[in-house]
């Protein structure tokens, strides 16, 4: 190719791009040269899809209303698999793709007939879960072939109505980790009934309220026959992720509800809204995090004995030696996904740090509901190396809401794209955002 032609074409293209970027009033990006082999970043939406982000970050709304979305997975081609909480046009998993390269998903298809939360790509398979089983599908060039039959990897999880999401994580040794939530608030004899004592020992811990490990490659396992209880005493860990760099499992626990409704004499409305912490856990084999007997109080920095088990908000009792979280978040924010960022697109400070999607509270009443954001936690040596900070807000659509049904969107799932973009899913309408950093990247690589 002759170099004059290239120079001319680059010049024309440069002005054409500037003109067009201005013409459609979208966020302009610096057009410096890089030799990236990945496709160019699409231009950010003018209003960042309603989100507020740190400087130089922008978003494209890749899809606006896919339905009741839960977790998401992105393949090497940038196509997104969405696990649905409710069937969308009779499909439990949606695949959305961008065939034109403008960042907007224009092709929607779907398969299978169960609802659920977990979805993950591992060793060229797509894994997905219903509330009682884990399935997988082979991937060919990133796609699930039309004729592919799901393989049942694990079945036989207890049927439960609350905390039923079977979220998934994978290590580097061929294991799959599955969250099995506790089926109650705090194992009361009479479920969520004021003053009812907790069952002791709590029978729910036998097959629930922990993380179970299985062989990721062996079809036909059941929890009872093949499951290994990797960790226990975890009320519900919807946000569950293996950290490759640290070679360790991490999760966030949804703390218990209703301290003051159930124990009016012991807790005020304010205490009930601010306690207990949502806990960020580093999980080793055999760990016990104390549910239902204990909860974490981030004002006291202690595990406190639950009122169902004789606690009064102060006593620590049997909780003294229970493993503490590596970080504690405000009560009831509902952490629903965790992602350790390994991409190169975002600035250095984000590398290996944790993004957490908080679905937002429902039981901080009579005060305003909170959460509804994506938070960033810097990491070093397997632990947070600084305070958490809000990374993305604006999901709610208004400044203050009293009830969760007022929220326009609620962040629920996170995934990293092949170019290091961060994808966020929403459980209300199924809006999907792609978050990008625009400082030193070209808008079109030539």
């Amino acid at each position: 190719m002759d170099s004059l032609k290239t120079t001319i074409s680059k010049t024309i293209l440069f002005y054409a791009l500037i003109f067009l970027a201005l013409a459609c009033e979208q966020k302009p990006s610096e057009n410096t040269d890089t030799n990236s082999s990945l496709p160019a970043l699409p231009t950010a939406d003018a209003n960042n899809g309603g989100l507020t982000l740190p400087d130089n970050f922008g978003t494209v709304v890749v899809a606006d209303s896919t339905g009741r979305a839960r977790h998401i997975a992105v393949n090497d081609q940038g196509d997104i698999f969405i696990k649905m909480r409710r069937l969308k046009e009779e499909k439990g998993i949606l695949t959305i793709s961008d065939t034109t390269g403008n960042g907007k998903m224009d092709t929607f298809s779907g398969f299978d007939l169960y609802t659920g939360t977990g979805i993950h790509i591992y060793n060229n398979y797509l894994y997905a879960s219903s509330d009682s089983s884990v399935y997988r599908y082979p991937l060919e060039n990133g796609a699930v072939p039309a004729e592919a039959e799901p393989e049942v990897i694990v079945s036989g999880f207890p049927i439960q109505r609350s905390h039923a999401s079977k979220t998934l994580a994978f290590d580097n040794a061929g294991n799959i980790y599955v969250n099995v939530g506790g089926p109650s608030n705090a194992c009361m004899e009479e479920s969520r009934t004021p003053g009812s004592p907790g069952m002791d020992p709590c029978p729910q811990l036998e097959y629930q309220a922990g993380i179970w490990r299985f062989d990721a490659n062996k079809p036909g396992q059941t929890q009872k026959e093949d499951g290994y209880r990797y960790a226990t005493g975890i009320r519900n860990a919807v946000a569950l992720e293996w950290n490759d760099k640290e070679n360790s499992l991490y999760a966030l626990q949804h703390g218990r509800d209703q301290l003051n409704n159930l124990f009016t004499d012991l807790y005020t409305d304010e205490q009930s809204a601010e306690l207990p912490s949502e806990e960020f856990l580093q999980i080793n084999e055999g760990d016990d995090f104390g549910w239902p007997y204990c909860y974490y109080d981030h004002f006291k920095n202690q595990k406190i004995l639950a009122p169902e088990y004789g606690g009064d908000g102060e006593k620590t009792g049997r909780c003294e030696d229970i493993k503490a979280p590596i970080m504690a978040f405000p009560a009831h924010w509902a952490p629903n996904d965790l992602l350790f960022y390994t991409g190169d697109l975002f600035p250095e400070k984000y590398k290996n740090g944790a993004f957490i999607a908080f679905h937002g509270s429902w039981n901080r009443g009579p005060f305003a509901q909170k959460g509804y954001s994506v938070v960033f936690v810097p990491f070093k040596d397997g632990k947070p190396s600084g305070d958490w900070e809000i990374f993305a807000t604006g999901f709610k659509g208004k400044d203050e809401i009293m009830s969760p049904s007022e929220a326009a969107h609620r962040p629920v799932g996170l995934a990293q794209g092949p170019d290091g973009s961060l994808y966020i899913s929403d459980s209300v309408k199924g809006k999907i955002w792609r978050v990008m950093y625009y400082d030193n990247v070209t808008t079109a690589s030539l």
Partner: protein
Amino acid sequence: MNKFYLIFISIALFIAACGGAKNEAEQTETTAQEEVKSEPEEKVAEAAVPRGQGIYKTYCQVCHQADGNGVPGMNPPLTQTEWVLGEKERLIKVVLNGLNGEIEIKGEIYNNVMASHSFLTDKQIADVLTYVRSSWGNDASEISEEEVAAVRASNEG
């Protein structure tokens, strides 16, 4: 590779980006909004409403919310639902016995557990249900202590 061809493609991509919002599949969910009729028989006892509101705040609000709209996908709304406006006996039984299993409320599926609230007195249940039946646009008759007592008796017997 022809560079001018690339330019053309790139420009086309940019134009697509500008108008891209229209590319998304329009997939809005429709929610069946059934009209639920109620027959106001008696006038709602005035004092029962503030008393019932206090009970609602303590025992129901956390799940069904101050605006009665519930928590999507988790706890159903109490606004213009068949359960709230319909047959009194069935409504009283929800509070006395709790409720679980799959139910459809205003086009949404709920499959969760509400605990029994039989620890509330007949009067408290009457007041809270009277409050619920006359709030957030609900306009149904009051529920009396005697009606709750009768359901409780038949329930236990």
